[in-house]
């Protein structure tokens, strides 16, 4: 009996609320002497088509060409680092396919960057399923080269947060009231150790590169699943504050490892004002059973010494200034000078019985310039000063050309 009344009151309240909303909007109302069709036509996208859109098909992508000049005896490299072809198809206004195929290192390593279906239900609740870029930090999902100023992605986004980290799974995304964006997915997890047919290490976590060497989508055992999520606040113009997490086992059924539970958390912020950008991120990871992972790696390769740490910690702060902001306020060109200080330790805590290599406690200062004649094209040059607790580190000069379309 009581329940019935609860339903009635809830219904009455909701109805009154809806009615009052409609009433508030229609209290004063002009007569619109323009036909609904004409207005709808004016608001349709006809007449303004992106060159890469062909009806429901969308062609997009990006590319970057790098020259890395190592200071000292290390050989220099020139590399068509990435050429990414994006394909999209809109089944209708609500169901959309988006995919990117990455031809890394000049077509030598073709790789699926992502391929997912978006089911757009309403702004606060949408469903995404497929191979999804993990929402860890900002750069993993929004990685088109003109969107960051350095030639290479920041080191934090290479050794702590894996580069182009994707997982297969599904979840939700949308906007919450108050200007909060959220994403929450259940995804296939990383793999701590993958051995090839001969029992040699095909790929694994490592002490120096963290989880970088993982390109496990496609062939992932699909045993261990993880959860990934991100909250982002962008309500105040110029400010973005976000935080992400990933939780999941990485042992993938290897009984010698056990779970290998990885927790990764990250916080980031960016503030832009008067042509100045201030940007920062702090990322922390904890990996259980790191000692077991190291023992498995030694068993597969007795010479293995790049021991996986149980914790990693890294952060950076970056300041950038758009030179034309005050100098040539009318121009559409953009010339950015920036400097970034990164401090990261991929072995900040070691499992019992393993010692950290001081060479993995590193700092990097990257200073450079990025010129964007149009927002989609960037020509970049920077110098990286690298050093570590072991007093090692090779400085590097980078030149880059990046674009997206």
């Amino acid at each position, binding site marked *: 009996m009581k329940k019935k009344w609860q339903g009635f009151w809830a219904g009455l309240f909701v109805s009154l609320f809806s009615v009052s909303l409609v009433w508030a909007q229609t209290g004063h109302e002009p007569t619109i002497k323009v036909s609904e069709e004409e207005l709808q036509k004016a608001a349709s996208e006809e007449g303004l088509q992106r060159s890469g859109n062909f009806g429901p098909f969308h062609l997009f992508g990006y590319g970057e060409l790098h020259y890395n000049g190592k200071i000292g005896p290390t050989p220099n490299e020139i590399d068509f680092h990435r050429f990414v072809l994006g394909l999209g198809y809109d089944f209708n206004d609500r169901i959309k396919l988006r995919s990117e195929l990455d031809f890394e290192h000049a077509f030598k390593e073709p790789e699926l960057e992502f391929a997912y279906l978006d089911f757009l239900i309403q*702004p606060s609740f949408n469903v995404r399923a497929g191979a999804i870029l993990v929402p860890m930090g900002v750069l993993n999902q929004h990685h088109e080269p003109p969107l960051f100023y350095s030639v290479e992605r920041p080191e934090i986004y290479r050794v702590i947060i894996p580069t182009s980290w994707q997982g297969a799974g599904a979840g939700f995304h949308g906007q919450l009231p108050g200007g909060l964006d959220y994403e929450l997915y259940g995804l296939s997890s990383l793999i701590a150790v993958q051995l090839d047919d001969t029992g040699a290490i095909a790929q694994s976590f490592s002490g120096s590169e963290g989880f970088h060497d993982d390109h496990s989508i496609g062939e992932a055992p699909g045993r261990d699943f993880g959860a990934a999520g991100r909250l982002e606040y962008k309500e105040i113009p110029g400010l973005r504050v976000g935080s992400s997490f990933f939780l999941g086992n990485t042992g993938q059924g290897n009984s010698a490892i056990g779970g290998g539970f990885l927790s990764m958390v990250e916080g980031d912020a960016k503030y832009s004002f008067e042509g100045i950008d201030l940007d920062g991120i702090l990322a922390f990871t904890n990996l259980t059973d790191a000692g077991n992972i190291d023992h498995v790696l030694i068993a597969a390769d007795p010479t293995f010494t790049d021991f996986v740490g149980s914790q990693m910690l890294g952060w950076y702060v970056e300041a950038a200034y758009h030179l034309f902001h005050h100098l040539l*306020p009318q121009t559409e060109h953009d010339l950015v000078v920036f400097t970034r200080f990164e401090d990261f330790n991929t072995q900040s805590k070691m499992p019992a019985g393993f010692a950290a290599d001081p060479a993995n406690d590193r700092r990097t200062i990257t200073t450079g310039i990025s010129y964007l004649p149009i927002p989609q094209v960037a020509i970049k040059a920077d110098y990286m000063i690298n050093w570590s607790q072991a007093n090692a580190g090779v400085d590097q000069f980078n030149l880059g050309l990046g674009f997206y379309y």
Partner: protein
Amino acid sequence: MRRLFFFLFLLFPGLLNAETIYLKPTEALKIIFHESKEVVSEKKTLTDAQKLSIEKKLGSKLEKKEWTVYVARTGRKIDGYALIDHEMGKSEPITFLTAITPEGEVKAVEVLVYRESIGSEVHEGRFVKQYRGKKASDPIRVGQDIANISGATISSRAVTRGVKRALLLWEVFYGKV
């Protein structure tokens, strides 16, 4: 069960619309010009010289010479003007409405349709209210008199360019030269 569906229907009016449509043009005009008696449309055409002059001030090409302006009036008194236009975001067009006062200042900017998956914050109040009171002679530039939305720089710039264009068009069609 049926009652449950009815409540869901009331709670999520968004289910009725495609997710990117924030406001129908009719609704936007009704809300912005709620004090007016009627809204009519006027077709306006730019001369080659006017088109060129706007392009010069805007720093980019105009796609067309013919424009439709929605004029809100009460009797013979004009209450304001509105233009519906599109600008290219990162990969999809953004459709927005710029409402202008009889004095040539921005009255309101409403994003009507946003088609991209990121950067949709440009439709939110805190961003679009920055345009209020801007005139064709103001810089109206992201980073200068308009703060951008971090992570949505391209969309911020696109809408900003569109608002400037609407003001320049208004100046030619209705401004005192």
